[in-house]
């Protein structure tokens, strides 16, 4: 599809959406931006730096110390358990000598940052 056409279609889709169901669109946009932020936090070296150890989507130069972050919904049907794993609650730390940092426990990330990261990786 050429890009003009694509733009037109998107514009149409957006405008109809705005016209008909503005509330859901706003909610969806908010969610989308949280997911974007989550991705940024996950990739940032000074924040999550998840790529140091995990393959994550299209992230460049991933390490291979931890398992690939993929099929998170399957691995963690209960999203709270995924949050706990990244936060580093004692019950979630079951692997001996694991390199996985306890991000919430050690104050590396705030709960709100971890929520955003979890929202993002839950889409993978």
């Amino acid at each position: 599809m050429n890009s003009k056409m694509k733009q037109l279609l998107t514009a149409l889709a957006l405008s109809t959406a705005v016209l008909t169901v503005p509330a859901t669109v706003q909610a969806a946009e908010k969610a989308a931006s949280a997911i974007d932020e989550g991705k940024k936090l996950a990739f940032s070296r000074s924040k999550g730096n998840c790529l140091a150890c995990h393959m994550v989507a299209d992230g460049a130069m991933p390490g291979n110390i931890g398992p690939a972050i993929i099929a998170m919904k399957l691995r963690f049907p209960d999203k709270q358990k995924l949050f706990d794993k990244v936060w580093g609650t004692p019950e979630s730390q079951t692997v001996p000598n694991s390199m996985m940092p306890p991000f919430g426990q050690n104050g590396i990330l705030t709960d709100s940052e971890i929520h955003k990261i979890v929202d993002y990786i839950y889409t993978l």
Partner: protein
Amino acid sequence: MKKTLLIALSLGVTVAATSTLATAMDPETDRQQLVDYFQAKNPKIAVDEYVNGAYIYSADKMQQWEAAEEFPPYLDAIDAGEAHYNKDIATYEKCFGTDVSAIRPKYPYFDEKTQQVVTLEGAINSCRTDAGLKAYKWKKGALAQVSAYLAYNARGQKINVKIDTDGARAAYEAGRNIYIKPTGQLNLSCAKCHTYNAGRKARSNLLSPILGHTTHFPVFRAKWQNLGTLHRRYGGCHKNMRAKPFKAQSEEYRNLEFFEAYVSNGLKINGPGYRE
């Protein structure tokens, strides 16, 4: 039942390690267990090869590194080290004797009088200050260059650290604790990277094995663009762990070096080395 067995198995070295810690630890058994662990993990890598750090895990990187070692960037530093040495040669010969190839292999050792580990760099500076000369700076520059000159002259001889007193055993154990205990904001330990995950990648950095960590120091790092001592590297790793580094030549880092050198016993000295 099955689960506990699996967990016990995956703990492997740690289980053995903590139980030896509880009783009086025997460094030689401990060293042998570590060597066995690495051999079980990579049966194809001969123990001798561990002197080449992370490059043993990647044919590509090994090739690039071998090419770099053909015209190594540390040659000028060795010459500079020789010049520094010769400038104060009368002093140095009083401390170390006249055979420059016999100096590096004596370090680190445990000194019974002071009940402290003595490192090569520490001995060079004590030799200077005892004679009224100014001490060199610890992490790079003249000290690293003199150390490189002495390592270069000792290439091919083996690491041979001795532990036969309670004091030496205690220093080994103290160094080993620093190596194993998770610390810093990221809850990492040296062991997590250089034992359990050696050969894996953190981003694109291949993690080197502890065996051989001390053989090739001081090191010329592409990243530093100059020569640095082992303790400079320790400090860098502690910073990456978001932990407070100890000072170069602190008791902590001397003990850590003593531990890392002892487990590398039998490996050949190949310093100075080049690293990314």
